[in-house]
């Protein structure tokens, strides 16, 4: 458990490495540089890879829903977000979770 707190502290420091130095170099670095574009691509790929893996091959609680149920939940969330509302995040997220709940309780 100590190890987990240490991990959190290290991750906090690592995150601050993007925040703190930004104050110092607010004029120096170009957000249009190649390195910056690469870091942006990697950052998006990390979180997209994680979310797609959580939905396709979940571990833990999420594995209690079948692939089809998770897919329908995602589709409902996307529909509510993009088409039924003007990109209302709360409505989209709640619609997706609600759809999963309804599907599960209907099948029980």
């Amino acid at each position: 458990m100590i190890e987990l707190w240490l991990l959190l502290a290290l991750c906090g420091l690592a995150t601050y490495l993007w925040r703190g130095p930004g104050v110092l170099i607010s004029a120096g670095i170009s957000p249009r540089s190649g390195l910056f574009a690469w870091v942006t691509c990697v950052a998006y790929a990390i979180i997209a890879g994680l979310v797609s893996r959580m939905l396709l091959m979940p571990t833990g609680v999420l594995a209690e829903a079948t692939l089809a149920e998770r897919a329908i939940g995602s589709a409902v969330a996307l529909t509510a977000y993009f088409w039924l509302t003007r990109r209302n995040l709360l409505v989209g997220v709640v619609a997706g979770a609600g759809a999963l709940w309804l599907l599960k309780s209907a099948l029980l």
Partner: protein
Amino acid sequence: MLVAGYAGFGALAAAHDIPLALAVASTVVLWALPGQIVLIEMHTLAAPLAATVLAVMLTSARFLPMTLVLIPELRDARHRPWKYYIAAQLLSLSGWTMAMARFPDIPRAQRLAWFCGFALVLMTVSAASTAAGYLGADHLPPLARLALVFMAPMYYLLILTGAARERSSMLGLACGAVAGPLAYLAAPEWSVLLAGLIGGSVAYFILRNA
């Protein structure tokens, strides 16, 4: 919208047997939901410490350009320099977006105070939502718990597909989404970092050569 994201994160932490105090502390210390989800998922996969720290760090790279844009807007001769470093820790995607929208109407001397106040409210609400999601997950029936945990990936599915306007972010998202599950099949404990590096580099390569 933050409430939904952080409540989902709290429920996810509870499902992975992370202590409540740590889940809430991560909201204040990291103050970056993707990094927090990466931290918890990789810890559960028993990923090496260095890989976890690196992956969390890479997901937070967006803070550098956000800080670079925000701080000059806050600068005023009357502020002590260390206050900008506090503001940098309080920076989040929602706080930044709101600040950029409101700053034209706020006198320069008052922006730092306004930003810190607003960001602290966001952080407090998010920490409370983390705790509520965590405790809710422990006391809810299994079905409701499943729905609550499902909110975390849904939050990101929507925010990512909705925010992808530039080609670099769209390509990164698409390549990462393919690389994530593949890397997980190859090496679960390194998968998050591997997917990011490979997917991100492929996206960057396509971008350069398109």
